[in-house]
């Protein structure tokens, strides 16, 4: 075999077309000067320069001082990159992220982005932003539901696929995490949006109130409850309220008083079924071992929790304990069999309230019996 002939390629870092003597016209053009390259050659011959071509020319020109220099400083880091390059980068990134089906995915994402930026999306009467909730809130909460609390759901078939219904649940856990988890669980299993009813304090707090409305909540009052139920929404109430959520750890799984039964009269007036929901596991996420009533009063809060880790560990103490959750939806309690004036009969309202409360309490006990341990 004959020796391979070596064909020189490139300029080996020297300006010009491989002669190594004079910078080519292209290189001079890059340098930005017209006649400036002549003195350069005299002062600093290219053969001696170990640095790459363009830079050497530029530094030489700066040294000579008579030619306007092109420096990296004159370029804005972002302005220099044309939008076409951004588009190309996005293009390849899209292929990377969305896979083969990237084009419609990207198109949908850009359309979504445009809608959000131009405000061209709809909110309903209560300020519910469905798009934001499903794309953002649920996406954030879903991993918590599946990986952290590992929620076990039973009796989901008791939730009607359409029409108004009232989900009544026990409330626990110092912060209303159980409400958020119930929302995302119901949405994932049935595709329906649970519309929670919140205390007026929720809507007084900045950010909390705003996010609650965007997430579909509204004030727990008869007007709103009946309006939502008439509109065929799936409404969620936690009748224990702050008494339930802020009860000490020693009283866990003991249902508190069920408000004044306002939720029952709303269901009776609209004739929608009541679905009792029992949640086990939420009691253990932030075990409330102490309370500072005086400070809570100053801050205008119903209670100021002290848990084994909060405020001891600061923000770390706000991470909920990874308890295992069980959620059981009970048989719907029908309210359309009562007379028209049933909602005005306090005795009947109390009876139905007790019936719902007892159902939830009994289910809580049986779920607790089935649970192996708090965290498993």
């Amino acid at each position, binding site marked *: 075999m004959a020796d391979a002939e070596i064909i020189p390629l490139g300029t080996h870092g020297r300006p010009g077309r491989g002669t190594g003597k004079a910078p080519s016209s292209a290189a001079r053009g890059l340098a930005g000067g017209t006649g400036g390259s002549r003195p350069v050659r005299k002062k600093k011959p290219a053969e001696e320069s170990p640095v790459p071509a363009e830079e050497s020319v530029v530094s030489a020109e700066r040294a000579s001082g008579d030619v306007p220099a092109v420096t990296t400083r004159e370029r804005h880091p972002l302005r220099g990159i044309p*939008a*076409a390059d*951004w*588009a190309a980068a*996005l*293009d390849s990134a899209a292929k990377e992220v969305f896979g083969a089906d990237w*084009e*419609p995915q*990207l*198109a*949908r994402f*850009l*359309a979504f*982005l*445009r*809608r*959000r*930026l*131009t*405000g*061209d*999306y*709809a*909110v*309903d*009467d*209560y*300020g519910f*932003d469905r*798009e934001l909730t499903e794309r953002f809130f649920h996406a954030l909460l879903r991993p918590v539901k599946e990986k952290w609390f590992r929620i076990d759901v039973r009796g989901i078939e008791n939730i009607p696929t359409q029409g108004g219904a009232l989900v009544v649940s026990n409330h626990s856990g110092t912060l209303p995490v159980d409400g958020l988890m119930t929302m995302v669980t119901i949405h994932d299993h049935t595709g329906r949006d649970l519309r929670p009813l919140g205390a*007026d*304090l929720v*809507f*007084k*707090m*900045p*950010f*909390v*109130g*705003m996010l609650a*409305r*965007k997430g579909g909540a*509204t*004030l727990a*009052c008869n*007007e*709103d409850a009946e*309006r939502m139920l008439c509109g065929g929404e799936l409404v969620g109430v936690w009748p224990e309220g702050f008494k339930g959520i802020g009860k000490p750890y020693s009283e866990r799984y003991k249902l508190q008083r069920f408000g004044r039964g306002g939720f029952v009269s709303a269901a009776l007036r609209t004739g929608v079924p009541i679905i009792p929901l029992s949640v086990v596991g939420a009691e253990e996420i932030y075990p409330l071992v102490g309370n500072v009533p005086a400070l809570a009063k100053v801050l205008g809060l119903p209670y100021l929790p002290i848990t084994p880790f909060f405020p001891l560990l600061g923000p770390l103490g706000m991470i909920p304990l990874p308890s295992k959750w069980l959620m059981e939806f009970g048989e719907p309690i029908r309210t359309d069999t009562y007379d028209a004036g049933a909602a005005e009969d306090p005795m009947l309202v109390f009876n139905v309230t007790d019936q719902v409360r007892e159902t939830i309490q009994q289910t809580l006990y049986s779920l607790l019996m089935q649970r192996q341990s708090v965290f498993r």
Partner: protein
Amino acid sequence: MAERADRPTGAGRVVLVTGVSRDVGRRFARAAADHPAVERVIGVDVVPPRGDIGRMSFVRADIRNPVIAKVIAKEDVDTVVHLSVIATPGSTGGRTMMKELNVIGTMQLLAACQTAPSVRQLVVKSTTTVYGASNRDPAMFTEAMEPRRTPYGGYAKDVADIEAYVRGFARRRPDVCVTTLRCANVLGPRVDSPLAAHLRLSPIPTVLGFDPRMQFLHERDLYGALEHAIRAAVPGTFNVAGDGLLTLSQVARRLQRPTVPLPGFAFAGIGGVLRRARLAEYTPELRSFLTYGRGVDTSRMRDELGFTPTYSTAETLDDFASTLTPTGGRAVGLLDELERHLPASTRTQLKTVRAGAAPALSGGRHG
């Protein structure tokens, strides 16, 4: 629609309009004067109107003194349209004067109407501000609901008082058809109101951590509603607002205006600065509205009054936005630029996505 036996006949009506020195009153009176069913329009105010008054005849009178009774009797007025309820003390010289004009003026006007047998109909422009705005509000106020907190002063208190006097008048003169229109915030290219001034600011100050829901009524729909109320003669109180709701963040994005969120206490402070600079005026009612927002149910307006606004809330805002120069919208510009450089196939996809999944914002009917 309830036909009344003593319903005023369409032809040759004599309409008295109060508050014609301000734009809303003047424009309505002018339009009413051109209406074929109207014989004469008499505009009343303490100061002469600034613009073209058309065929309206202007009487310079103060509704706070009994002269107004003579005007009604002499001109044989059968329809009274009360529009002179003012929202801000700004131009009138203090809160005392504003209360005087609003409450005492209405009392005198109603007293004059009560003694005038010729009066057959009274239309009062009220406002949804009577419902207040707080964290305890239901999502949608119906006409039967009361404000959750009794207004302690200012415009809301004035309007509550005025409505109480109007109800009293309706009881004492059952033969007069009394219609009260509780109008949502009126917006339009020419409208000059505290809220319009607020939305014309750039950047728009907002209350940190709150995103109030808002409803708007187009200026033309306000005139339409007043005209409809006179023509239909349905007694009662009605909420009047465009379809749908927008949150303030949506409003700012649609106006392409940047916002500057301020904590609640700072928002109250900046109100004073802006008032001194004559840029905007924040009454306590407007402040609470910009914090908690408000929604009103308009099903009675549709079903009983039989009025349908031509502009939805979003369309009203778009019409208002057409007169503003956008000062923000940089993010949208970037998005435009980006989309222009996408490959052609992606752009076609984008077009189909946008055409297919256009959100139903303008069409949706809200009760």
